[in-house]
């Protein structure tokens, strides 16, 4: 935490370009409690976070600090025990399972540390998955899946199975899948955590490029260097947001 700077001081510099942008994510006093063998585990204890359209926010914290839980709740994969969650201004904490599924399908792309691709399913079919549930026809699915795979540099790996791809390639397939239904928000939970540094760099370059095209990006990482690609870094500890910092863009 030594490099963390006073958040008040930073506001004047970094967020300037996003101050006008609408909020795409707003968490307000989110509490998440997991019941575990009768004991309540507090994964989040009143976390609040605001992310504006087009932003790239990095989230850092120790293992078990609640980063993934925060991402899941932001990504409508889970509901908070208490508090409010707004996506595009809509309170999603009251929605039912099917409404949440629609939001995940249409607005959000998820990239996981462990890729989470379907095994024994080709790269292109994996990428088609969100379109399948969006009700897109088969031919259109193929076409769009092929386009995004080409965009992440896997145009020659369409019919490869995950087991035939390197970790970096698998993660790029996962990014293509997150991207295929034109989400406005991509959530990446330690996307480079399982990758060697070269593949990690490739993945980061793709994510940054997507952010450059206007997609809001929230990225969880342990790695300070990775986090510094973000406009802003949010620090989390024991389920609480303990502060945030602007990243200086002098080196770009």
């Amino acid at each position, binding site marked *: 935490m030594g490099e963390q700077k006073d958040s008040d001081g930073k506001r004047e510099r970094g967020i300037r370009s996003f101050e006008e942008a609408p909020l795409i994510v707003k968490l307000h006093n989110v509490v998440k409690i997991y019941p575990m063998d009768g004991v309540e585990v507090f994964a989040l204890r009143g976390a609040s976070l605001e992310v504006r359209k087009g932003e790239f926010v990095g989230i850092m914290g120790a293992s078990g600090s609640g980063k993934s839980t925060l991402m*899941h709740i932001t*990504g409508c*994969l*889970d509901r908070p025990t208490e508090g409010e969650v707004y996506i595009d201004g809509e309170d999603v904490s009251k929605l039912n*399972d*099917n409404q949440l*599924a*629609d939001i*995940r*399908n*249409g607005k959000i792309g*998820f990239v*996981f540390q462990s890729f*989470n*691709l*379907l095994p*024994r399913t080709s790269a292109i079919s994996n990428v088609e*998955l*969100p379109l*399948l*549930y*969006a*009700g897109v026809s*088969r031919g259109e699915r193929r076409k769009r899946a092929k386009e995004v795979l080409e965009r992440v540099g896997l145009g020659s790996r369409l019919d490869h199975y995950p087991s035939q791809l390197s970790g970096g390639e698998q993660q790029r397939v996962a990014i293509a*899948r997150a991207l295929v*239904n034109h989400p406005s928000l991509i959530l990446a939970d330690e996307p480079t955590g399982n990758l060697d540094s070269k593949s990690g760099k490739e993945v980061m370059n793709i994510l940054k490029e997507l952010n450059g095209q206007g997609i809001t990006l929230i990225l969880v990482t342990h790695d300070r260097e990775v986090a510094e690609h973000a406009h802003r870094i949010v620090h989390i500890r024991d389920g609480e947001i303990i502060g945030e910092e602007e990243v200086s863009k002098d080196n770009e």
Partner: protein
Amino acid sequence: MKILEGLRMAFISLKANKMRSLLTMLGVIIGVGAVIMLISLGLGAKEEIGSSIEAIGSNLIAVVPGKIDLKSVFGKNPSEMKGGVGFQANKLRPEMAEFIQEKLPEGFYVAPIVIDTRNISYGSNKHFTSVVGTTENYPRVRGYEMERGQFFTATEINRDICTIGPEVAKSLFGEQDPLGKQILIGGHRFMVIGVTAPKGSTFFIDNDDIVQIPYTRMSRYFGKNKPDNILVQAPSKESVPGAVTQIQRLLEDLKLEDYEFTVITQEDLVGFADSILRILTYLLGAIAGISLLVGGIGIMNIMLVSVTERTREIGIRKAVGAKTRDVMFQFLMESVSISIVGGILGIILAFGGATLISRILGIPNQMTLWAIILAFFFSGGVGVFFGVYPAMKASRLDPIASLRYE
């Protein structure tokens, strides 16, 4: 999601576990195969029995000794069946045939039937066959035509003459003409005056391997003077029921001490055969039903295993936007695919099995379209019924818990 899309996905998933899918299908394959095979063989057998009964003759009424109630054979306590066939002293007499013939109106023909089996021979050619003692009415009543010569007439009833079936003729005479030849029946000399035309079999009894002699000879040479039954041919189908009551009354009027007769019509026989077939069909249907039930439980079991194995897949699908009903549909499609493919394989199996069995047993088989369609939808129904619970279980999984599942 469209049905076709769902089926395509289901087949991909089933192909990934070929052996397991096939084994799971086995119950349905056997169940559906059994149902269709039994239906088609049953229909064939029914037709066969119908035409067999027809071949006995037409509009026939039989008077048989003993009390038999065909309708209650399967419905009642066996102890109520007094005697049954041959359990009681046979009180039929050839004179009864004459008596019935006299009392019935014009157009009815009555023939007593006394059956025995004897060695017969012509020169060095020997044959063992059934000998029927009867009257001149026999060919008309049993529907025999003559190939050569003729049947004996009323005036010839006391002569040592006989008619023989074509099989007997072949066996004793080969290519020779049997007419006018003397043959030995049970050591007694008879002259052949006619050969009956080929008629085929009735209930596995060869109508062509038989010898007919006047009933008086049966009693004189072989000591058999009691008809095994008396056959009455009615002039029309409509006259049968009236004749049955009349014959019953006539026999009662004879006031025989502790006599028991039964008057059976051809229709009774058809009904009897039908009821036996029906019971067989129910029994076999129940077996088929049980195997479909077991097959369904097998499908449910495998689907539950599959849901557990694929928890992570379900989590991934939900994470990218699959709704409860999408997951439900996917798993339901898989169980339905298993059962429908099983059903189709069962239909193919039944086709082969029924063809084979009908060849071996010599009964026709009737593959009916409705049975195939019924079996197809029934197996689909089994897939839905036993697939619902696993599919519901899958669809209700929590996405995060599923993604964390190892």
